[in-house]
């Protein structure tokens, strides 16, 4: 991805902020011209809840070029508390800690260094919620 695309989408990548269709409730992580589900044109800005449940995860071992230096890394499919499903890198976990169904929460992290320009790009990642004993 280009740095320009990163800048434009920082509100989602930093804060899980996006646009919710006032008609059908569909969430858009980009600013929509028209609702991708119902074609309505009215939206309200919302922030997604920062916690949810890990539905499934995987580990990338042979990553694309931009991610070579970060391999292996984990990608999870997460269902947030409001039911929205999002993808995220997983972080701050111990080797045996990842299991489908565990509770996870959003944290702000460095995601990568962008190509030739060397710009450090930050964004959300999710980590297991520590069970309070």
């Amino acid at each position, binding site marked *: 991805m280009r740095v320009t695309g990163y800048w434009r989408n920082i509100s989602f990548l930093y804060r899980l902020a996006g646009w919710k269709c006032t008609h059908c409730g569909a969430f858009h992580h980009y600013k929509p011209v028209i609702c991708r589900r119902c074609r309505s044109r009215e939206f309200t800005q919302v922030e997604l809840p920062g916690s949810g449940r890990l539905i499934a995860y995987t580990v990338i071992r042979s990553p694309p070029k931009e991610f070579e230096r970060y391999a292996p890394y984990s990608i999870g499919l997460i269902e947030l508390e409001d039911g929205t499903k999002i993808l995220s*890198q997983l972080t701050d976990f111990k080797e045996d800690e990842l299991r489908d169904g565990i509770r996870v929460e959003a944290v702000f992290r460095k995601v990568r260094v962008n190509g030739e320009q060397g710009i450090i790009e930050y964004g959300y990642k999710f980590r297991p919620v520590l069970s309070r004993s």
Partner: protein
Amino acid sequence: MVGVYVAGVGFTKIAEHWDKDLEQLMAEAAVKALEDAGVSTVNAIYVGCALSEYLQCQANLGALMAECTGLVGVPAFRSEAAEASGAAALYSGFCDIASGRSEAVLVIGGEKLSDGLPEEVSSGMLMMSGRSWYEGFMGADFYAISALLYRLYSKRYGDEGIPFFPVISHEHAEGVAHAQYPFKITLDRVLESPFIAEPLRMLEVSGIGDGAAALVLVSEGLARRLKSPKIKIFISSATDYMNPFDREDPLRLQSVMLSVSKVLEQAGVSRGEVNMVELHDSVSILGALCLESGGFSPPGAAGKLAMKGEFGLNGRLPCNTFGGLKARGHPFGATAIYQVAEIYLQLTGRAGKNQLDKPRTGLAISLSGVGAAAFTSLLKIEEV
């Protein structure tokens, strides 16, 4: 609508063609197809290629192919629908003939993945299966998304038989001259291969190769005058949300469901009359989902039916009769054209040792991304 016929096919072996440029590979396939059809010129050229800008630093491939096939003057441009780029070119070529504007068109699909390093090919795949600033930003590549789908599938249905899809494809590829991996593998070997993105194993995903394939499409009018065998063709397409987890049910590929239904209706063929299917088994789980979403297997049953032999050359519904994406190979923009060419060989009795018993109708499913788009082609023996 003017009826559209396939009148000839040509393709190269899928391999790492270090000695050839992309356009040479494509010209080779194109010239073979023209010869096979017995046609010396065409009214237009449709080129399918996914990543030439990224891997070859080459745009304007249409005009370049007109030149490399000695057909300068003829309209020519490129279609891109990620891994289904060849099918997109076919779709445009089909409409051209169907409109009555052209009598003969050349459809060429090609991809030269060996011009990039493996991690560059992965970056290319990242462009194809997600939004650049969402999946692309976090590195959730095609294998990651497919692996997550695979997990959901296993939870709902179990994964029995899914790793058997590569076994079928390799069995059919054995000894196939144009296949990239023309040898058998066992289920054990699949299961013992390392994870590429768990639960997806190395031997459940297609490799990296170069290839080109071409078709000559002709109008019913020209078909009548040509000597080469002619097979009627239909094609439909549909799209879905880019990210499968934005879909109502990620395990139902709406794009496949819609495009299969539409093409069957267009051709006046029922599912039961389909004698063979070429699946988009770039990863094992997608092969299974193509069958289920296309209505050729109940949901959750494709793996079990595979284990029972239903999709073998002698099964109820032979699949991937020359090895599919897994074993014949998967050079993105060329893949759909290989699929259609292979059905053409089957229907015209030219499939050699892989020949099915008098098939009359075959269907090819070609996906882009994780089913963001599907193109379904149907070929059918029908007198002109």
